């Protein structure tokens, strides 16, 4: 695909991210503040909240503690999303297990189940942190070569 066309496509894609919210714990409240409140107003970044389901979503934010019992639904959620799809892991629990690192029931990071594009640290992260994570994801999308992604080539960021 010609480079300018790819750039145009990527610009279009990164400003129309349908975000699927997957609030599992207290981080879900910060996610809700980022999505639903006029103060943070996630839509000014071109992120569209509340798709009718995972099958219409481009981006999912895993916000909260992922337990072993919750892992199969998360896996299914990811598989339902159409390609190209992106994952933001929000909060320490979702990143690595967080304070429940040695628990008998908590998964030590959602990246053990699904691939993660951006990790947002914090316990919980403020909505601004999530917005920065979304901006980082948009930079990544801008750098993507869709043809190589569809071929399954490794994604090179910042090339």
């Amino acid at each position, binding site marked *: 695909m010609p480079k300018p066309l790819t750039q145009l496509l990527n610009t279009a894609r990164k400003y129309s991210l349908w975000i699927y919210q997957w609030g599992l714990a207290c981080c879900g409240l910060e996610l809700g503040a980022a999505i639903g409140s006029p103060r943070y107003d996630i839509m000014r970044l071109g992120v569209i909240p509340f798709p009718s389901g995972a099958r219409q979503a481009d981006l999912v934010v895993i916000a909260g503690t992922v337990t072993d*019992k919750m892992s199969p639904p998360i896996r299914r959620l990811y598989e339902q999303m159409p390609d190209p799809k992106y994952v933001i892991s929000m909060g320490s629990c979702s990143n690595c297990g967080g304070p429940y*690192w*040695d*628990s*008998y*029931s908590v998964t*030590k990071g959602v990246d053990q189940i699904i691939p993660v594009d951006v990790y947002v640290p914090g316990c919980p992260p403020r909505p601004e942190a999530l917005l920065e994570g979304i901006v980082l994801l948009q930079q990544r999308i801008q750098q993507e070569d869709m043809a190589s992604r569809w071929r399954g080539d490794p994604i090179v960021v910042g090339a």
Partner: protein
Amino acid sequence: MAADAAAGEEAAAGGTPEAESPAAQATATTEAPAPVDERRQPWLEALQAELGEALVGHEIAGGDVWVRVDSSAWRRAVVACRDRLGCDYFCFLSGLDWKADVDLAAEKVWDPEAQPSAPAAGANGGYRTGVAGGDTRFQVFARLFSTSAKVGITLKADLDEEDPRVESIVSLYRGAEWHEREAWEMLGFTFDGHPGLRHIYLPGEFEGHPLRKDFPLLSRDVKPWPGLVDVEAMPGEPEGGGDAEGADAEGAGAEGGEG
């Protein structure tokens, strides 16, 4: 560093009255005899009349009542509370594991020197027991409440350590079903007559009972707790009392402050 030492002294000075205050409260309570709880004493007497020898322990203190019954009379005690005392609200049901001599050294987070010493084996087999006493490692307890009398009661029963088993009260309080499932998976209690004892919070293939004191947290065996690596010296602790990494972090902080 001088500022740190001063802060430590302040913390120590602030901590001293707090350390003394519980003792002062304890003496105050021992001087004043506890008045008879006129709302809960009749409950206890009614249960004593209803259960007889099966009521093996009781306590009324601080505006609450605990009754410990024999495990064979568990369901009978709940029936008595519901029908005689008018307890129309089931708050919750759970269990206790009084095991004290757990080998916490196996968990690498804990300092072996700080490990609590095992209690001397007494008449109750060495188990530290809570309110209303106890003879065994496991206890099941339930909280019932009367919404008309505004009085609650906590029922307890000792369970066998090898086979913790008690009769289900689901047919008395429908809300007990999930609580008994939780106690079954978390503590390994068996509730005879429960309609379906299966996992409720844990995955179906989970093995073991995590709320038992001897349940190992295997993550700590595989990998030391990451929080231990970058731990800083607590305020008021002597310098160099921690490990070398803590001292390094403190020194870096002091340099940053000067710069």
